């Protein structure tokens, strides 16, 4: 297993973190990830992450639920076993709306949560590394990935100049659980 080197900067204020992310990207460093105790709106765009498609997945799951409900009930009550309920038509769609609606919601919700867990690789007994345990408390942790060309000393002093309170070098084994978003990250465009 390869070992990767990271320069980790700890920030104590998201107001400092924001411009720091901007400057770090402009300087050409590669941000491995930023760990924050709560969601910070716009940070994903600032980091150049693409939007999530989780909504689309949810829509597809929902449609699947609708189709399952309508299809199954239609088959069960009009084809497989017709029952005369008070002389009403076998195909009585309005009476099936409640079950159809519930299954739509159920499929969408369950599917989305499972997809969310899959994409983020979250499950019971999964252990991941997030560099600083305080990052779930009050610290905003920015991890820069070092390549052969990166000078650690330069990166460290750069992080300090943009406002990091504490900077250190950490070595992590490259397993899937450190997470890699290489494909997600868009390079910073000068014209912006």
């Amino acid at each position, binding site marked *: 297993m390869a070992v990767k080197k990271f320069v980790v900067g700890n920030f104590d204020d*998201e107001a400092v973190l*924001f411009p720091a992310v901007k400057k770090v*990207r402009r300087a050409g460093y590669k941000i491995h990830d930023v*760990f924050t105790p709560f969601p910070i709106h716009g940070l994903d*765009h600032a980091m150049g992450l693409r939007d999530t498609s989780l909504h689309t997945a949810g829509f597809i799951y929902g449609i699947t639920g609708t189709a399952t409900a309508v299809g199954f009930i239609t088959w069960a009550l009009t084809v497989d076993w017709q029952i005369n309920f008070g002389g009403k038509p076998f195909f009585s769609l309005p009476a099936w709306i*409640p079950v159809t609606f519930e299954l739509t919601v159920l499929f969408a*919700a369950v599917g989305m949560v499972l997809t969310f867990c899959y994409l983020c690789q979250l499950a019971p007994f999964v252990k991941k590394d997030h560099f600083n345990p*305080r990052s*779930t408390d009050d610290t905003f942790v920015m991890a820069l990935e070092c390549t052969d060309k990166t000078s650690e000393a330069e990166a460290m002093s750069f992080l300090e100049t943009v406002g990091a309170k504490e900077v250190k070098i950490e070595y992590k084994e490259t397993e899937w659980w450190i997470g890699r978003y290489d494909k997600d990250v868009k390079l910073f465009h000068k014209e912006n």
Partner: protein
Amino acid sequence: MALLRYESQVRSPLVDGTKDYHQVTEDICRPVEANPSKLWWVGFLISVGLLIFGIVSVTMEVMYGTGQWNLNKTIGWGWDITNFVWWVGIGHAGTLISAILLLFRQGWRTGVNRAAEAMTIFAVMCAGQFPIWHMGRVWNAFFVLPYPNTRGPLWVNFNSPLLWDVFAISTYFTVSLLFWYSGLLPDLATLRDRAKVKWRKHFYGVAAFGWTGSTKHWQRHEALSLVLAGLSTPLVLSVHTIVSFDFATSVVPGWHTTIFPPYFVAGAIFSGFAMVQTLLVVTRKVLALEDYITMEHIEVMNKVIVLTGSIVGIAYLTELFMAWYSAVSYEEFAFFENRLNLDSPYGWSYWLMMGCNVLSPQIFWFRKMRRNLFVTFFMSILVNIGMWFERFVIIVTSVYRDYLPSAWSTYYTPSIWEIGFYMGTFGLFFTCYFLFSKFFPVIALAEIKHILKKNGENFKNNMGEVEEESTEEFGHKHGHDHGA
């Protein structure tokens, strides 16, 4: 701090006191990390005692049938379904707070949503017990599911409101659970990272699913919460609508009315908020969380109570009007003789309901009363009693004197086992709530931190100076290059 939106200075802060992020973590994790107090043990053991009483009562019912409950030929639903509708109603506030108020961007929901959602889940668990054990031959309960069987296969009746209920309640329970737990993940991770004892590290390590707080995860988490909120909003309205269909689609005078869906939903929110008040007025005191569940929160919820209580009141009056206007003698008899007439055998329950649900909440038109904890607590109990009697009135007074006078059965009195079953669900509910308040953070940590700089007392005062650049604008200016 860059702000998403400007928060008016006129509004009171949602987090009192001088706090930074770490202080928030400390305050909310303290009750979880401390040893349980004596008071906690007393409450917990009483709840477990009630739960055991409930289990004994249910055992009696399973052994001897629903006759143990003194149900009779006309009153087949009695306390049992009354309790079912009551608990389901209570289970509506949590999702309303977490979903609908999220869509409406109500910042105050962050203080109360976690506990309210937990309450929802426990209330729905209690509600589910009643129709299941009411089946009598409970070992056949799986008959309600459409599974391939050897009887044909004979499918369930998808045209029946009772089957819609099965789908509505089970979907509601599942989705509420997912919504609640996915919101809990970051907070469980905080507890995991703070844990010093081995079992705690392990327990919260497993429970937190390996949450790290990565920006990408937060981005997906936000998307997930928003879509789940969007799904839960119609869901929460659909659930009590479908419960009301159990009655509204019948041809029994007193049940056969089209006003039931909105009237039931308003009543559900009404009783749900009352239960949230009952729990939180105590919880905030015992766990010393007054800075997070402030008087502001209590007042806002009291406003919801007076609004929904008045909607319910209008529904009652509409029902009476329609009974008269329909000129159907059976309808008139159900409303004016069986309910409104104080001298009729159950007239008292109708007036008790009117008093508790319609008249008493009007006290909340006064700000002083809305901000008085004793009044709030007392009113929350009164509303829950009133809402229980609403369901009792609907279920019992509509059927105890039906078309056939020889079948009239006045004075249906519940047996000790029927009461025991009801008490048992209180045991279940509070056992779960006590465990929840001990092992999980009762306030959404990450969400409080998210609003802290907008709505925290010490940040609010100097907000004019710190507002510089909106994060959204920043996001659009830098790196937001879709389609580029």
